[in-house]
């Protein structure tokens, strides 16, 4: 069956249960899904469907399976950066933005159940109103889906709340490529979601498998998630932010390690001057250039918090530990940001929610921005910063213009390292060469690209034949017809590997 014909049959199938305005074939709208800011190029969006509930999703998957039509799930609003929502072949886009119900916020057991279309912009204020906070990634765009961000294991700003790399994701309701739906962990049963009394906060199992892990980091290739539970935390009644600056990342890494292992701090992240300036600049390009000049090369931002009971006492003790640790390392923790021109309050505000203005902060300098990110241990961070600097020098790209972000994860046992390379229209080819070569060098040096988007997939899976073979076996179980976002990760020609 030819692609166009298959899509036509698919369309007839879904028209039986989707409302007319949930099926879109307008060329301009479809065109907007064909590319994003990344280097990924692909096939074409042939049709766009908007499911409203799990039954719709099941119907869509079954129709796709019957007609062998690839589905590309999208939950966040544009712009997209990583190429994971660009169809690799002619495909139907499944846009979850109309499934945006906050199903439950449970103040006692501290979790929220969300549909995939719920965004950070929508959830954060709602939680705050009820006295809770969400562990945020660094300034996501307001229209970013909370569920997919957690599914993709994006790092959060508060490492102490993270006990493994999937935390704070709890349980999922998922529709596999077979059209079967499934609930993970303690949401699995017994019985139906209507009769089950459990809160669904035990993410493990059911039984001897951690089903939620198979769907994580999968870029939609293993199943379509129709609802998910995530942890939420108590909103501190008192918070203080401190800035620790240094010309070199080494002492800051040491400070992060000591602060996290003693669980002194809540928020804990380091940004270089380029990133902090992009976040804080009032106007561009003047204010940005001045800030970038004045800010120190690296700033460690740490938050101390007191919760509902005796908050001042808690903060006083943690502040003492903070000062002791900084003292041991010859560092200073200040409530003011040197070179920041009195913008400390703005930093505090920004860290507690998504980025709300236009353009997105990573696009404030140039039209595009290409991120290189990976995981490593804190001890190896300085070495990788050096590797990136070397790559920038080789390609004649000023290292100071590259955004740098260090986010300890899992209580500091790991660290997300992210370099953001701003890219103007006229320098795409040059930046692409730099991006590819730097990524390859980092991988060769032992950087762990745990979320291999776009060109990274081949680099990563090419080195791990046994792992890729095991993943292909899983894919053949959960998506035997290879209809879920085909062409991504190691799932190139056919789901059966």
């Amino acid at each position, binding site marked *: 069956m030819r692609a166009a014909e298959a899509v036509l049959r698919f369309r007839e199938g879904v028209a039986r249960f989707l409302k007319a305005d949930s099926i879109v074939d307008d060329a301009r709208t479809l065109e907007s899904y064909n590319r994003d800011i990344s280097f990924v190029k692909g096939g074409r969006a042939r049709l766009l469907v908007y499911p409203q509930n799990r039954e719709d999703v099941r119907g869509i998957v079954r129709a796709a399976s019957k007609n062998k039509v690839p589905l590309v799930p999208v939950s966040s609003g544009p712009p997209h950066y990583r190429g994971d929502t660009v169809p690799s072949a002619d495909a139907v886009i499944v846009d979850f933005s109309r499934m945006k119900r906050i199903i439950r916020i449970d103040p006692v057991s501290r979790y929220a159940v969300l549909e995939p279309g719920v965004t950070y912009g929508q959830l954060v204020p709602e939680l705050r109103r009820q006295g809770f906070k969400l562990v945020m990634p660094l300034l996501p765009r307001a229209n970013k889906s909370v569920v997919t961000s957690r599914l993709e294991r994006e790092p959060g700003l508060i490492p102490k709340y993270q006990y493994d790399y999937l935390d704070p994701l709890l349980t999922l309701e998922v529709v596999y490529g077979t059209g079967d739906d499934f609930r993970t962990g303690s949401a699995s049963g017994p019985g139906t979601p209507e009769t089950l009394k459990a809160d669904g906060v035990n993410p493990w199992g059911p039984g001897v498998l951690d089903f939620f892990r198979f769907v994580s980091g999968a870029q939609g290739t293993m199943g379509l998630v129709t609802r998910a539970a995530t942890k939420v935390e108590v909103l501190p009644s008192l918070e203080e932010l401190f800035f620790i600056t240094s010309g070199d990342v080494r002492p800051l890494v040491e400070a992060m390690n000591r602060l996290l292992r003693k669980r002194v701090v809540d928020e804990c992240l380091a940004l270089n001057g380029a990133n902090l300036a992009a976040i804080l600049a009032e106007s561009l390009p003047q204010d940005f250039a001045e800030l970038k000049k004045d800010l120190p090369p690296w700033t460690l931002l740490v938050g101390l918090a007191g919760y509902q009971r005796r908050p001042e006492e808690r903060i006083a003790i943690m502040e003492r530990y903070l000062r002791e640790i900084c003292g041991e390392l010859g560092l200073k923790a200040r409530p003011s940001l040197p070179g920041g021109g009195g913008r400390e309050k703005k930093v505090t505000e920004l860290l507690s929610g998504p980025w709300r203005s236009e353009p997105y902060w990573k696009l404030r300098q140039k039209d595009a921005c290409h991120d290189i990110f990976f995981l490593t241990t804190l001890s190896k961070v300085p070495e990788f910063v050096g590797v990136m600097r070397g790559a920038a020098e080789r390609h004649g790209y000023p290292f100071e213009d590259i955004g740098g972000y260090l986010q300890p994860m899992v209580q500091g046992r790991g660290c997300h390292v992210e370099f953001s390379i701003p890219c103007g229209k006229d320098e795409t080819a040059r930046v692409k060469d730099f991006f590819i070569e730097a990524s390859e060098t980092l991988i060769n040096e032992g950087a762990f690209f745990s979320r291999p988007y776009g060109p990274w997939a081949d680099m990563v*899976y090419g080195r791990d034949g046994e792992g890729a073979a095991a993943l292909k076996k899983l894919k053949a179980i959960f998506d035997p017809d290879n209809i879920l976002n085909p062409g991504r990760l190691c799932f190139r020609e056919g789901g059966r590997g």
Partner: protein
Amino acid sequence: MEKVMSLPKEVYQALLKVVGPENIADRPHILAALRHTNPQSGRQPPSPAAVIMPGSVEEVREIVRICNRHGVRYNAVVSMFGMGGVVSQPGMLVISLRRMNRIIEINEFDRYAVIEPAVRQVQLKAEVFKRGLTYPTASAGPSCSVLANFLTSGDHHTQQSSSRCSRYLLGYEWVTPTGEIVRVGSLAHGAGWFCPDGPGPSLRGLVRGYGGWGGGLGIVTRIAIGLDDWKGPRVLTTQGHSPDYKIPFPPDCHRVFIFKFPTLEKVRDAMTEMGKAEIGQAVLKFFYATEAVLFTVSANDFRDLWNSGLYQRELPRALWVYLAAWTPEELAYEERVMRDIVEEFGGEPVDASITRKYEENMDFFILVSFLQRVLKLGGGWSPTKLGADSIHHMFEVAAAIPEFFYDFIEKGRILDAPHNFQVIPMEYGHAAHIELLFFFDNQRPDWQQIPAEVMQKSMESDIRHGFHAATPPRVKAVMERLGPLYSNFQVWTNKIKETFDPNNVSNPGPG
């Protein structure tokens, strides 16, 4: 004597070639030691055909490949403290991993340890303590394998401030049931042992879920586990000699409190609030009868204590709190928060003699060195429930225990200890684990049915109420019957087993 199935001669010879004659045996007296009954089930376990002791991952791989070629079923074990029996069917090969007992690395800065299967709790714990580190240690006793525990269960007394062991599994090296060596996560990418998830979808999900495969999906030959900083002394000082010894901790930074509350709801709410305030190294509602067993050194002692009624009076609705801090000031702050909460929910200290037992035996919170005492009554015991969800849900489950439990008590089939359940919060109260333990007299003619019947009634109660307090065990018939109630998880579990173990040789289960 039971008739023992033996391995075909050529298979035995092929295996012998891999490990040498000193590391394989099929003599009856050796096999007899591998089929002892355990006091929980009463079932006479099947006898294995032989036992083999590989010394390296390569040897494990060769053994697994030979087993595949000849359809020989096998199970990997270490100290055999697991409750599923050594082999699930007669004629299997026991792969004893005892020779693989090295601590490969303890990384103090990045806080992880890499270990082989036969590294015991008592071995690793002492090494990491010396370095000011610790890890979540199940109350499974000092002799059990850290790796086996991380793969199979892993709930423990101090998970309020940490989590279940499964969260701390950072990477593994795995001989698949078909004999490939797979390294998972960052390890496969020359990036070190710190992240088990990715690239892309996480293969970490294969090796265990809420529970473990019990050897049913290949053999794990190394794992990395996460370490936490340890607030206690680097070397533990013991007073006296086993079985009558004490391990106190410096009281300026370590204190234990036990409070009784008017209702179980108040225990629940105090526990929830302590989670929200992020205090307590350990916070738990513990088993009261098990505690009486643990803290007495003989069956007669236990009887005296239990019959005195002290525990029944003081502990059915109690909350155990262990505060540990870096400084006395921090301890004082946590104590003030704790007391605010206890007062708010009407708690009062229990009899000081009970609390003193803990202060004198702080190993309760680190290794439970005296766990074997649970077996000393000479009778039978068994756990049921063994599940997790929110603190609130776990207490909802607990409140329904009398519905099925009293019937067994009234008929004299189990010890009269209806409150012998524990609820242990984890991750500062984001979830909690429940376990119900019962004791029975294994001199009764019907004793072998007791554990199975209690477990069945417990499961029926869960299903009736919509409680998630356990998932059906990996017993084929039970999974097929109950799986549809749990999102049909048996369908996917079976597919994974068939895909990764097409010859069904890796501990296939009792059928």
